[in-house]
């Protein structure tokens, strides 16, 4: 009996970014061969120049990733945006590249808003003067509208979000992503290679079902040379409001994010407990940090946001030193 293994992108594939993409011997017969060989996947030099120009005034870029769905990427992206924008001197941009399931408009209280065009491009939708948002959600006219697109069309829109949106001068660009390691993730990393990405924040929940996907995401970051700022363990325990006993609704049967971070040598930025107010605030489009300032979850989030900010500041400092 033959044991079947896929000849995967692991050993044989030269990598979609490489000069050999689509041209190596291993590429023969790969369904993506033509896409890679014609460079259809990566931006061409003219596009790269255009992107570089557009994104020139972005000081820091942070990607929010997870291999797993429903762990709290959008929730964290929204709170990170609010947290950083609390300093009115900073200009913050939140870009939602989840094309099929755009959660950011609702979470930021911007449902029903539409994108306006000006001479200099698309205008982001502003929550505060210093906090602008862009999402495919703003381009849909009804909450029932489905975006049933294959990869190439999604990539095209992501490129437009980067080229055609008039972001202005930004201190922090936060990019919220869908779960997985596919078109959207490859594209955003490729397009943003025209500028630079400070790093990725990776979200997980404690149980192995999540961790097994998140390890793949960490592997993805290593493959595309994306620095990892750290991992957040979300939904980490629940304290009953009545009897104050803790329950592990999503049990860390294999040691949770802590063990995984130790094994893979990445930082654990923090653990955030479950709090029913988080979901309520997201549904209402309000900042949980403002609505529940006393919650232990708020304290966790604030500490994590501070660590992300410190990471970016240090990165900036290092870059300046090199110059």
């Amino acid at each position, binding site marked *: 009996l033959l044991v079947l293994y896929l000849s995967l992108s*692991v050993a044989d594939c030269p990598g979609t970014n490489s000069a050999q993409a689509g041209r190596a011997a291993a590429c023969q017969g790969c369904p993506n061969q033509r896409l890679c060989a014609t460079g259809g996947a990566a931006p061409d030099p003219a596009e790269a120049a255009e992107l570089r120009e557009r994104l020139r005034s972005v000081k820091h870029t942070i990607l929010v990733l997870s291999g797993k*769905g*429903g762990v709290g990427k959008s929730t964290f992206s929204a709170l990170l945006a609010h947290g950083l924008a609390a300093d009115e001197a900073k200009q913050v941009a939140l870009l939602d590249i989840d094309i099929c399931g755009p959660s950011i408009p609702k979470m930021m209280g911007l449902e029903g808003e539409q994108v306006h065009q000006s001479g200099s491009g698309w205008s982001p939708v502003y929550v505060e003067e210093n906090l602008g948002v862009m999402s495919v959600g703003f381009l849909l006219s009804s909450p029932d509208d489905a975006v049933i697109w294959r990869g190439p069309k999604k990539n095209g829109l992501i490129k437009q979000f980067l080229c055609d949106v008039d972001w202005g001068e930004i201190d922090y660009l936060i990019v919220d992503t869908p779960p997985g390691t596919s078109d959207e993730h*490859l594209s955003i990393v490729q397009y943003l290679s025209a500028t630079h990405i400070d790093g990725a924040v990776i979200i997980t929940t404690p149980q192995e079902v999540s961790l097994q*996907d998140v390890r793949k995401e960490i592997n*993805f970051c290593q493959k595309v040379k994306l620095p990892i700022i750290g991992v957040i363990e979300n939904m980490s325990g629940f304290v009953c409001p009545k*009897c104050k006993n803790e329950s592990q609704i999503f049990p860390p049967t294999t040691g949770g994010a802590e063990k995984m971070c130790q094994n893979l040598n990445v930082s654990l930025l923090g653990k955030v407990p479950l709090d029913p107010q988080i*979901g309520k605030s997201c549904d209402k489009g309000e900042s949980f940090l403002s609505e529940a300032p006393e919650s232990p979850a708020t304290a966790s989030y604030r500490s994590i946001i501070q660590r992300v900010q410190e990471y970016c500041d240090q990165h900036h400092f290092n870059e300046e030193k090199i110059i």
Partner: protein
Amino acid sequence: LLSFLPERSNLAGVRHILLVLSGKGGVGKSTISTELALSLRHSGKKVGILDVDLCGPSIPRMFRVQDSDVHQCDSGWVPVFVDQDKSISLMSIGFLLEKPDDAVVWRGPKKNALIKQFVADVAWGDLDFLIVDTPPGTSDEHISTVEALRPYKPLGAILVTTPQAVSVGDVRRELTFCKKTGLRVLGIVENMSGFVCPHCSECTNIFSKGGGEELAKHAGVPFLGCVPLDPQLSQSLEEGRDFIQEFPKSSAFPALARIAQQILDGTSQRSS
């Protein structure tokens, strides 16, 4: 050429095909697929699960067979049997990875090619039900899966949501996907609907309540029920245990059993 005919294909012995969908990630699609399979098995049915989540395949671990290999036979790929009984069989990219932590970083066309193979080349044999577990969204995997399954006339789709508006918002879009692709909606499941504290029995609606039921009413589709958060269920899935067999008194059991019963009732109605 003969293998392209539905009657001669690897799906010829499969009586009912149903998809488990959600616009939203992390709501419990794989959980519901797994528990539905276990429940149907306990009603004496032979069940297969096809896991088309290529980036985050959860199914193998939920049956404790994550280290199994896939073998080939004359008619194609042999699905992985969960136990000696051979009443549940599985196919997932999870079985085909040499290193489980390696990311499958593929763009659409390569994903589509594997999905076509998964639909055509797995030698399922005779099954009462083939459950297709999907990743979140309405993109390559979903389009390709529905297209490949169309000649075999799937029974329809179960849509899973959690109660809060942010989830329901995505599941509305999935309903549109079903309408546009002609996929019948068998019903909506509202998962993670309330948590009963095992210490004091206080119920807390951690992810809100009622959104799934409201959506079903609004969209005119059947509501299959609310499944509460149940740490014993989460633990069971982590360990690849048979929750339906081992924890019939646990809080999620009645709702999960009811979902399976509604699916069974639906199919017996159709055949009569």
